[in-house]
């Protein structure tokens, strides 16, 4: 895009303001932004010609008014529906400043995209339709802005011409908004009345609202505070280890807080290894010091083990290290967040396994009321406890966005399903230590003359899991192996007595069974687990607890029709009659395994034949031949 300003000068070094525009659908965001670009004088002639042409096409040969929204709504679907689906980024500048603006969608279903735009913004322009006042989306967006750390808001009360430019209406809306902002912790609020299509108070003062004497929108943006108030302590997540040859070993990354100088003592976290900075390397020559925002390569004065995902920090003021946290989570997945399901959590350059151990409450974003919740649905915000499988170096989000902001990734679909802001470490994480024991799995296995294994039988209710596993166990026992069988139904009489059959209860059910199986394998046993385990995610979680080759997934594949025909416990009949809800295969899904070690098709084969297949596969893996 060609860029000019009235003086014809280009000023690339006047600093940068990143802001977002948000508000409810039809409040006129796209029009306001288009008008802002137009008034800043940066819309090229050919785009203006296209705008005039497209405006006529959409609105007929009526008044020559330009539809400024067409400058920003770029996707076909958006033009057809007249709405903004996704965040669009625009770039412009005035003689005083460079701007990157994220034009955010108003529809509730795209709230996650709005959060995306807010994550890198320093200021939010919130639009309100003067006729409607504050709407649920205004509150939702303001809440998310505050959650993401935005502390400056410009409230633009739009469509003032449709309320006869009345000052009292404007005053009432701004009064209400200031109260909301104070409640949310937004410290700076500027309000102004605008008429987006006419450009009133956008690039130039309005003649229609002489009662407003304040600055225009453009002037407000030019004078907004761009200082970033982030942590002063030096932090750099290691992104990439640079090893061109044996003589050079550098740690490349972007400084996320504070500054560091050559000679400074640092610590590599979470392992807490100390060293001093030897060089700060860049392609333009070595630097004496590096500050937040710079992408550099550090070399250290001694050989220590550091790799991607570690954090290099000031040795005198290292970051806290923990594996359990309290955090706000904004859920972005189409499927609900289920407590105890394993997700990947990426923070800085580190990716670890994470579980939400409890949802303390979810937040009604309209009232900020705290509500009880057992799951989080799309666009909901919850305050949660998180448990990681590795300790990490972190900061609270308000101190350092790079070490306090994280994303959650679904391990099966790889979709980004949530984002979160760390608050503080849970004290119990620091107080629970792993007790070292002298005997280990190998020693216990050897004394039993076997290698420990977990055989995980999954399949629909009535598929034949327990029948086959029972035969397998009998056969192994007769061969002298030490086994134990964990049957899902039996466990629900004791350990899992408190769990029902909702999706979240099934996740917790499988987690507990997997943990118990893991303990039994540690005891040196061959464990046979029989649980429906309908979700791919939880089976993956179970697999992840075990060493390579220790876990064998056995998919007992019987069609739903066949299971219903057999119906050994009469459960399908009850489910069909509506007496049981959340029944796998009927009103709850079963995700077919993709990577099972054994796939048993039961129809046409006797259980004894199937059990023999399992035993053969197991013994082959143990290095024993079948002795029959």
């Amino acid at each position: 895009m060609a860029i000019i300003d009235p003086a014809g000068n280009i000023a690339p070094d006047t600093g940068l303001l990143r802001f977002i525009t948000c508000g409810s659908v039809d409040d006129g965001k796209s029009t306001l932004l288009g008008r802002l670009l137009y008034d800043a004088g940066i819309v090229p002639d050919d785009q203006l010609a296209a705008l005039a042409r497209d405006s006529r096409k959409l609105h007929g040969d009526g008044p020559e008014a330009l539809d400024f929204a067409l400058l920003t709504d770029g996707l076909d679907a958006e033009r057809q529906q007249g709405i903004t689906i996704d965040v669009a980024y625009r770039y412009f500048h005035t003689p005083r400043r460079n701007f990157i603006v994220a034009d955010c969608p108003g529809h509730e279903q795209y709230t996650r995209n709005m959060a995306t735009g807010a994550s890198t913004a320093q200021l939010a322009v919130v639009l309100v339709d003067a006729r409607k006042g504050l709407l649920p989306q205004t509150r939702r967006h303001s809440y998310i802005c505050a959650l993401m750390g935005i502390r400056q808001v410009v409230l633009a009360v739009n469509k003032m011409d449709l309320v006869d430019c009345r000052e009292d209406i404007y005053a009432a809306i701004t009064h209400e908004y200031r109260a909301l902002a104070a409640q949310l912790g937004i410290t700076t609020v500027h309000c102004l009345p605008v008429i987006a299509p006419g450009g009133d108070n956008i690039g130039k003062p309005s003649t229609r609202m002489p009662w407003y004497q304040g600055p225009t929108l453009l002037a407000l943006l030019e004078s907004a505070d761009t200082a970033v108030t982030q942590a002063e302590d030096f932090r750099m997540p290691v992104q990439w280890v640079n090893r061109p040859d044996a003589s050079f070993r550098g740690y490349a990354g972007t400084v996320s807080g504070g500054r560091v100088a050559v000679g400074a003592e640092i610590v590599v976290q979470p392992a807490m290894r100390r060293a001093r900075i030897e060089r700060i390397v860049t392609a333009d020559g070595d630097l004496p010091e590096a500050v937040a925002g710079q992408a550099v390569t550090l070399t250290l004065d001694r050989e220590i083990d550091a790799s991607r995902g570690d954090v290099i920090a000031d040795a005198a003021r290292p970051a806290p290290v923990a594996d359990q946290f309290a955090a706000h989570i904004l859920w972005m997945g189409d499927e609900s967040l289920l407590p105890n399901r394993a997700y990947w959590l990426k923070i800085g350059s580190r990716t670890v396994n994470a579980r939400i151990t409890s949802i303390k409450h979810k937040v009604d974003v309209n009232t900020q009321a705290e509500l009880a919740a057992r799951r989080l649905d799309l666009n909901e915000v919850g305050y949660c406890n998180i448990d990681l499988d590795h300790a990490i170096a972190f900061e609270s989000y308000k101190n350092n966005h790079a070490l306090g902001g994280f994303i959650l990734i679904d391990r099966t679909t790889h979709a980004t399903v949530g984002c979160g802001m760390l608050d503080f470490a849970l004290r119990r994480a620091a107080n629970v230590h792993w007790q070292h024991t002298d005997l280990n799995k190998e020693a216990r296995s050897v004394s039993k003359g076997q290698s420990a294994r977990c055989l995980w039988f999954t399949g629909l209710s009535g598929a034949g899991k327990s029948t086959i596993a029972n035969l397998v166990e009998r056969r192994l026992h007769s061969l002298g192996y030490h086994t134990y069988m964990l049957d899902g139904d039996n466990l629900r009489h004791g350990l899992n007595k408190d769990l029902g059959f909702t999706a979240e209860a099934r996740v917790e059910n499988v987690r507990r069974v997997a943990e118990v199986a893991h303990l039994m394998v540690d005891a040196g046993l061959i464990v046979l687990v029989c649980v429906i385990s309908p979700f791919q995610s939880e089976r993956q979680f179970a697999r992840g607890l075990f060493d390579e080759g220790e876990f064998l997934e056995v998919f007992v594949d019987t069609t739903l029709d066949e299971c219903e025909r057999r119906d050994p416990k009469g459960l399908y009949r009850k489910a069909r009659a509506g007496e049981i809800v959340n029944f796998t295969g009927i009103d709850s899904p079963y995700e077919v395994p993709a990577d099972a070690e054994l796939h048993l098709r039961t129809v046409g084969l006797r259980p004894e034949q199937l059990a023999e297949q399992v035993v053969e596969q197991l013994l082959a893996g143990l290095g024993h031949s079948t002795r029959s």
Partner: protein
Amino acid sequence: MSYLDALEAESIHIFRETAAAFERPVMLYSIGKDSSVLLHLLRKAFYPARPPMPLLHVDTTWKFREMIAFRDEVAAAGDVEVLVHINEEGVRQGISPLTHGSAVHTDVMKTVALKQALDHYRFDAAIGGARRDEEKSRAKERVFSFRNAQHRWDPKQQRPELWHTYNTQIHQGESVRVFPLSNWTEMDVWHYIQRERIPVVPLYFAKPRPVVARDGALLMVDDDRFTLREGEKVEMRSVRFRTLGCYPLTGAVESTAATLDQIIDEMAASRSSERQGRVIDNDGSASMERKKQEGYF
């Protein structure tokens, strides 16, 4: 940090993330000014190591001769591997922008060719120089843009992208396109080229060149494959290019700007956008969005 320093640091961060998170990354090299900036950043990001990924040029066989000469010089420098891929099937079919039009030519010689090359080398991440300020559907593109195993882009299934925390998880066969220059503008690119003294193809600088006025664009006659239509004649005019692609599809602008300073001054006073001279953008409303969905870069 200055504004350009901040843009540079952000791009370097993206390069490093790509190298660290993917098994077989590649940088797409189209020889234009954005590619020149990308290559410069690639070298900076991994200094003092050699760049840990090759360059890939998808050659449509219709690039300006000066572009190919420039590419060969880059390859001769020796610090990066330059792979060149041509859709030989398209060559056999005689696909030409002059006879088949821009849509067919672009699809066969660029989109299909790119997919062939990505599949052939099994690249799982392809870095490109696209900027969000270029075109409206680009303004919506993620920095790490997910493509399914068929290389398709689905604007409604994009991953939310927060902070600089990028989701780089993919399954076998899937890939991402990575855009380190997402937040740069055309003017930023020129300021950076000037500041860093980055070499670019001489076609960006004005000089007298043989051109033909056709359909409102000035097309340069680069070799004898260019056939004149009735009534057309070749004129020598002082022109330069704001953007470079296939020579029969890329319009020149009349200009006397022969130095970087003059180019930057000329752009500051310009009232038209960069892609005005791109014939392929005018294939119809939202045509870029459709091309992207099918796998075009």
